[in-house]
């Protein structure tokens, strides 16, 4: 029987399952215990699973990332929750210099089976310091696998796959998705963390996106369908390593592509996807590649300005329309 739940609930069940299934698994992070997580993902888990498995930490991101790396090296399976990607900048050294490199630097003597979850993205009027989408930065780093669950099913099952990976995996949960509801289809007990997914099939133009922008891309595809334009929507799911095969296969049919990313354009994940399309699928293109990204500004606090700075369905549809039916 298919189960309907929120994205938040899916994350919570995933953590609970993982901890119950493997004594080496524990969750640590700021306010994850008594408070239940700043996005309420872990509400009730400390009461149920105990303080050893759900560990409240001081506000010291680099330290607790170091602790998580050390625990992973020592044989545990830590899940580190960093409240948001904005604060993960304080832990960059442990993530980039330790977690991503130790398997390599130790000649394979140490694995770092660490999973770091963090919230990402804008849309809740948290202003310029709490609204970043910096997952693209982490997708730059060899040694890390970067996941962006955009559906309830991925939120529910990506964690188990990430914990099974012997190398560090970062999971980015978009803040606007926590309240989203969705079905987990019958029989789904696991997902891969390797391939992109076609969330909507179409023949005229491909929209490549991930995470919090997926619902906007699907809304844009609905708008386009009403005009007779058939848009294919690809959910990348995995930001590193990118599954360009799925993108190229779609492009071979549609020959037009719009990339939607809440990150900024300059030096970004969307730029990397564009570059890879040029490398892998150049001769299939029948129109320039377009991007719909966040405006190149610090994220405004005012609601209308924030919405104006973010990709929106209307803008995505306009970009796709201009490729299919040039003005």
């Amino acid at each position, binding site marked *: 029987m298919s189960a309907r739940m929120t994205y938040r609930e899916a994350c919570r069940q995933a953590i609970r399952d993982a901890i119950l299934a493997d004594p080496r698994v524990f969750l640590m992070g700021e306010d994850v215990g008594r408070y239940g997580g700043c996005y309420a993902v872990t509400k009730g888990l400390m009461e149920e699973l105990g303080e050893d498995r759900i560990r409240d930490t001081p506000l010291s991101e680099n330290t607790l990332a170091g602790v998580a790396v050390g625990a992973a090296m020592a044989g545990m399976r830590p899940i580190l929750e960093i409240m948001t990607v904005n604060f993960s900048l304080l832990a960059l050294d442990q993530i980039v210099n330790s977690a991503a490199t130790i398997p390599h630097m130790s000649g394979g003597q140490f694995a770092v089976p660490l999973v770091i979850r963090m919230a990402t993205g804008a849309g809740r009027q948290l202003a310029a310091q709490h609204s970043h989408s910096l997952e693209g930065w982490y997708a730059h780093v060899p040694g890390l696998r970067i996941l962006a669950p955009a559906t309830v099913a991925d939120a529910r099952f990506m964690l188990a796959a990430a914990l099974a990976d012997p190398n560090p995996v970062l999971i980015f949960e978009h803040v606007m998705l926590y309240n989203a509801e969705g079905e987990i289809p019958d029989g789904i007990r696991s997902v891969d963390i390797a391939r992109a997914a076609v969330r909507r099939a179409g023949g005229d133009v491909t929209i490549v996106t991930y995470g919090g922008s997926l619902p906007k891309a699907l809304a844009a595809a609905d708008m386009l369908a009403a005009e007779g334009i058939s848009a294919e929507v690809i959910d990348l799911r995995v930001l590193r390593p990118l599954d360009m095969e799925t993108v190229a296969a779609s492009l071979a049919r549609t020959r037009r592509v719009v990339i939607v990313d809440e990150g900024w354009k300059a030096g970004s994940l969307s730029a990397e996807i564009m570059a890879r399309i040029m490398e892998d699928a*150049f*001769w*299939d293109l*029948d129109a320039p590649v377009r991007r719909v990204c966040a405006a190149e500004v610090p994220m405004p606090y005012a609601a209308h300005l924030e919405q104006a700075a973010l990709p929106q369905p209307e803008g995505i549809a306009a970009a796709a329309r201009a490729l299919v039916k*040039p003005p």
Partner: protein
Amino acid sequence: MPSLGADMEAGTLVEWLVKPGDAVKRGDVVAVVETAKGAIEIEIFHDGTIGELVAAPGSTVPVGGVLARLGDGSVTAVPAARPAAAPEPARASPAPEPRRPPPAGTRARATPAARQRAASLGVALDGLQRTGVDGAICLADLSQAAKPAPRRGGFDPKAMRAAIAAAMARSKREIPHYYLSLSVDVTATLGWLDRTNAGRAPPDRLLPAVLLLRATALALAGTPELNGFWEDGAFRPGDGVHVGWAVALRGGGLVAPAIRNADRLGLDELMAALRDVVGRARGGGLRGSELTDPTVTVTSLGDRGAESVLPIITPPQVATIGFGRVMERPWVVDGAVLPRRIVTVTLAGDHRATDGHRGGLLLARIEALLQTPEVP
């Protein structure tokens, strides 16, 4: 895809007239190809059995591209151009290759997919519709252009104009022309023609043109230096007097199919040959060899033409002979001024191959021959 002239870059396959397994011998017509000069029947140049038909009807194949293979697999590229008909070795490359982009600044804006498709079709990007993003040529524009091959028998005036432009520009660029002219009294000849035609039914009558053609062919047989090709810096004589007879096409354009061994045909045979090639040039159905065979070109302006013509040589030939309109003129005959029928015959010669002296001999021979049309 054989080269059917120095100006030809590609041809569009209209239809196959053979199928795999058919036995063919040299000279058989195997396919119809649409060129700038209209639909042309392509002859095969090897005996054998048709193996694979590589090109599909409707596809445009660059000169030198493979149309079909012979069955035994040992010989490739069946209807290949005759070596003599391929004056530019660069065009003889065996496989169609993507076009090289023109120099920067003149490059047509086209999407990668359109550019790729155009290259595989051998379609030029210039002149296509541009409905893509930023005014680029996109796939949709190309499918528009690549639509149905022109019907058999028709020709594209624009493409023919481009082909003539290319050939004539090349001629004027490369060939140092010299020009000679001679006004010839054809009163006696035309009198003989009038008497001959008077006894014939209209379909059997001879045109004045056939007399001019025969005299020219015979004169060329005696002046072989003006009958042949300038290739790779040297003259190569023709293997016969194959006169390319310039035919103006309705709606514009020009084609000069060969009348083979014109010097060995009697007047009636020549007349029949002339009617045949003119009819097929205008109606379609010329054979490829008829476009590549001419060893010399003759143009006759006819009743409504100008008084004389200074023609341009068709590369790689070395001479073109032109006839103006027959005009009644005051002419000095035996010390008296008499009205006579005069035609001005001109020669454009390739000065690399011959000098004016040789050209003068040819004109003198034509003049002499025109005095005795009845000699078989």
